[in-house]
């Protein structure tokens, strides 16, 4: 971890993560997530999958799926492409670490600050999410991850428990707009 003297701000512009509760549902800004994209090099798909399997403790997720491991989680992004996440506190330089593991088997790109995250926890996820995206939450199972559009923004929705926890990843620069959309939906639906 670096020892520089620059103080980070959250995507919403504060020094601490924002949390809002409406009825029994809480929306919490995710600030402790380090992200990196991993794309298998041409002809290195098996090597990449094998290494990712060791890192994740499970095969890399298929289309529409996420793998929740420790320290890494992974979300399928496209053919032979995944987004890996880890705790920011311990893995701020996640890309360097992953590249060291994957070597020439994959291209790795830091994505930590390309995204912002919002966790929805509690009761009422379904009525809120159906105002936000066209994902059919009724058929979503734990470990599902879908790419969708929320408020015209390209997002990932990762399902921990369709009735208790989902994580929304959206573009960091539009965190304010995404937060507005989520809060409007929460007030509207709950």
């Amino acid at each position, binding site marked *: 971890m670096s*020892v*520089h003297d620059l103080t980070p701000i959250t995507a919403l512009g504060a020094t601490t993560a924002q949390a809002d509760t409406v009825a029994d549902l809480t929306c919490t800004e995710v600030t402790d997530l380090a992200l990196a994209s991993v794309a298998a090099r041409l002809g290195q798909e098996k090597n990449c999958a094998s290494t990712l399997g060791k890192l994740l403790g499970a095969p890399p997720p298929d289309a529409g799926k996420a793998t929740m491991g420790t320290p890494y989680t992974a979300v399928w992004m496209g053919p032979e492409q995944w987004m890996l996440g880890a705790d920011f506190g311990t893995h701020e330089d996640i890309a360097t670490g992953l590249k060291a593991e994957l070597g020439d088997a994959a291209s790795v790109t830091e994505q930590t600050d*390309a995204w912002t995250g919002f966790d929805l926890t509690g009761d009422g996820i379904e009525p809120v999410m159906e105002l936000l995206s066209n994902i059919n939450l009724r058929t979503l199972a734990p470990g599902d991850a879908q790419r969708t559009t929320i408020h015209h923004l390209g997002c990932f929705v990762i399902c921990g428990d369709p009735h208790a926890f989902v994580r929304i990843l959206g*573009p960091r620069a539009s965190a304010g707009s*995404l937060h507005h959309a989520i809060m409007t939906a929460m007030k509207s639906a709950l």
Partner: protein
Amino acid sequence: MTQKNRLSGGQIDRDTTLKFTFDGKEYEGHKGDTLASALLANNVRLMGRSFKYHRPRGPLTAGSEEPNAIVELRGGARQEPNTRATTAELFNGLMAKSQNRWPSLAFDAMAINDRFSNFLTAGFYYKTFMWPAAFWEKLYEPIIRKAAGLGSLSMKEDPDAYDKGFRHCDLLIIGAGPSGLMAALTAGRAGKEVILADEDFRMGGRLNSETLGIDNLAAADWAAQAVAELSTMNNVRLMPRTTVIGAFDHGIYGAVERISDHLHTPDAGKPRQILWRIYAPKTILCAGATERPIAFDNNDRPGIMLASAIRSYANRWAATPAQRIAVFTNNDDGHKTASDLHAKGIKIAAVVDTRPDAPLAENYEVLRGAQVIDSKGRLGLTFAEVKLADGTMRTLECGALGVSGGWNPNVHLTCHQRGRPAWNEALAAFVPGDTLPPGMTVAGAANGDMSTHGALTTGAAAARKALGLKGKAAKTPDAEDAPVTQTPFWYVEGCSRAWLDQQNDVTVKDVKLSHQEGFRSVEHLKRYTTLGMATDQGKTSNMGGLAIMAELAGKAIPEVGTTIFRPPYTPTAIGVMAGRMKGMEFHPTRLTPSHFWAKERGAVFVEVGNWLRAQWFPIEGETHWRESVDREVTATRNSVGVCDCTTLGKIDVQGTDAAAFLNKVYCNGFAKLAVGKTRYGLMLREDGIAMDDGTAGRLAEDHFVVTTTTANAAKVYQHLEFLRQCLFPDMDVQLISTTEAWAQYAVAGPNSRKLLQKIVDPEFDISNDAFPFMACGNITVCGGLRARLFRISFSGELAFEIAVPSRYGDALMRQLMKEGEEFDVTPYGTEALGVMRIEKGHAAGNELNGTTTANNLGMGRMVSKAKDSIGSKLSERPGLNEADALKQVGIKPLDPSKKITAGGHLMNADGPVDAKHDQGYVTSAAFSPSLDSMIGLGFLKNGAERLGEKMRLVSPVTDLTVEVEIVSAHFIDPEGERVRA
């Protein structure tokens, strides 16, 4: 206050009394009432004035097909015009006003129009307001609009919120009448995901209006029992107050749910309405049928209503339009109305049945083979004139007349994807055709199954078939199954001012006139007469018009055909289509990493796509933006300035073939770019036109960072992905956008290195020797933070772009400002950025405008002949390389105080000013504080050979003519000494 016409029974909550006003007068109703039912209960039949002739009108129907009882609801900013009183739920404090009348509803001065009806027939506007043409927009149209029957807008911002949402199901059922409820019960009991949507606030459809029984229960009670059972099923979602407005592609249906329309004001945070997009692989349309009227002279008086509507008001809402009512029918259904009204204690004046063999009744008189031919009454019906079977006349005293001409299946949604309905001879009506929206089936009255038993049976069967349910079907509840035959009787022979389309004031005579004047196609008929073009979309009128046109043309009705049914099924508020996308949230915004800091500094922001970029940073004492911009430019050129350029697209390109890939993408060479170096690159489209420009820095043998213009970031990324996936799938290349991952700042000016040396960690040498112009590399700053440094310059000064992870961008900017104090560091915005790039002669979006080539931009020699790249071959087309091709040049006014404007055209110093003599045009212009003059960039024919030539810059649009000199596009440091300092 008494409710004089309130009956016993009904499905209203008499324990909850609601107060409301209509045209300022206070009334009372009950929970469960509509505005129309409550007004009728209060003996108010007159609810509006007609569109053209201002004739007094009352409700014709009891549902969403209503053409007449159109009112303004609420007040202030929530004032809503053109709302149907027949569907508006009553709430305490509801304020309603009639519209299209002056000074009052009872005495409307504009009713004078009715006296001139002979002149105001169909086509009147087309014939009368032809001349002079210039009068149309400023005189005729405003007057006509003012006189026409549209309500008024509050002209205030709608204070309510609207939303959008998405729902999925195995089966969508549209309409919760008998067939819809049976379909829902069948599918719901089978465990399928079901959505049952109904526009009414009480599910049950016609069952709520009938006295018939189902399984030994009153129809309404059976419906309530079915709804109660459905509401216990987790797999069934009941959506009352929800109108399915359209059937779209791929099993997607639009549905408007009225969340708060029945409330005085929406609850805090709640939307007024939600537009749902429902994804349904299977749909059953159970939209029922609409009763059709019979046209006769003066059939539009308040009190003349559809017979089924009067029955609904009596049975469901316990309201009656009058205490003495007659019925005019051509079928048995009209007799149901008479029978039910009689049971409620209403005096039946008579049932006038066109059929000679009509059934007789014990409790009231039936006039067989008779017709109502006219009506009387000033502001409402008092007498109906009846022509008896033997030709004699009889006057019936009555305050209301129920008219029943049979029923039309509601086929609208079956036609939303260009399907055509089919003619059913037995019903003399259109029923759904063979081509339905994929996945849709139709059941019940909407499909022509008019009996209750038929609706229940077909609803259940449709659900079983749609979902492929096996096993024995459940028993269909017992219900009436009377055979239904409908003998056409569209209008009374000899009538003239008999109203077909009551909302648009179209008469039988108008249809005849349309035919007479040659507008005989159904589409021409619609447009010439405006039949069916009002907010009710002709639900009660189209069939009558078609029938008359068919008769006049000597054709059968199906030969005349129907117009196309299009969404929305009922009028839909524009607000709900916008949803939450309004005001500042009309589209999402993108904030730069330094946004919050810039806001603190009082920056003025400009929208660049979704980005908000600082345009300039005014300081105390500055009163005009030019003062700020000039200061920012001068300060940067004299010392150092900082600009947030995060918005430029950044694409991470990795892979063993990354260099070879970029060599294909850019028209200039990239294969041999050294690690640690950056190169300017120009991308061409396939057709050889310039697409975008930027830089690509090589961070490793297999790793590049490509930058794009802000505007083209997404487009270039898409382009690269297309090339990677489709044209070069054998290349080992991986792409991902990192635009938002990195906060990137331009640090420009002669002191930029000195400033950065205070930020960049000391182990990184950024001297000119160690880090020359176009160098790039990974570094650390501020004690170890990973960063990237590029020595590139858009301003023409010694400059760098430094990037750190976005979360640190705010802190880095503050640090740069702090460390730069000794150099009077100045933040600059996009205006100063633009000025400096024009001074330097750098092309930007104005020059890369989709018509220009590398040759035009003076970069023709950059297009490498030594390799193949996208667009390089087609850039060699002769047409793009003519001797006098446009070339980018600089433009200066001879008089520095004169203005240069982008968009102006260049003309020779002498000669005509016209398109034929056009020499070129100006693309960018700015005031250059460095040159103390306006300057511009533009394209001039053979421009490279015309430097020093005096020309005229003309802009006929802004009446501008300026004498200019053609100069090099590089106004500042043409030798590039500064950038290499």
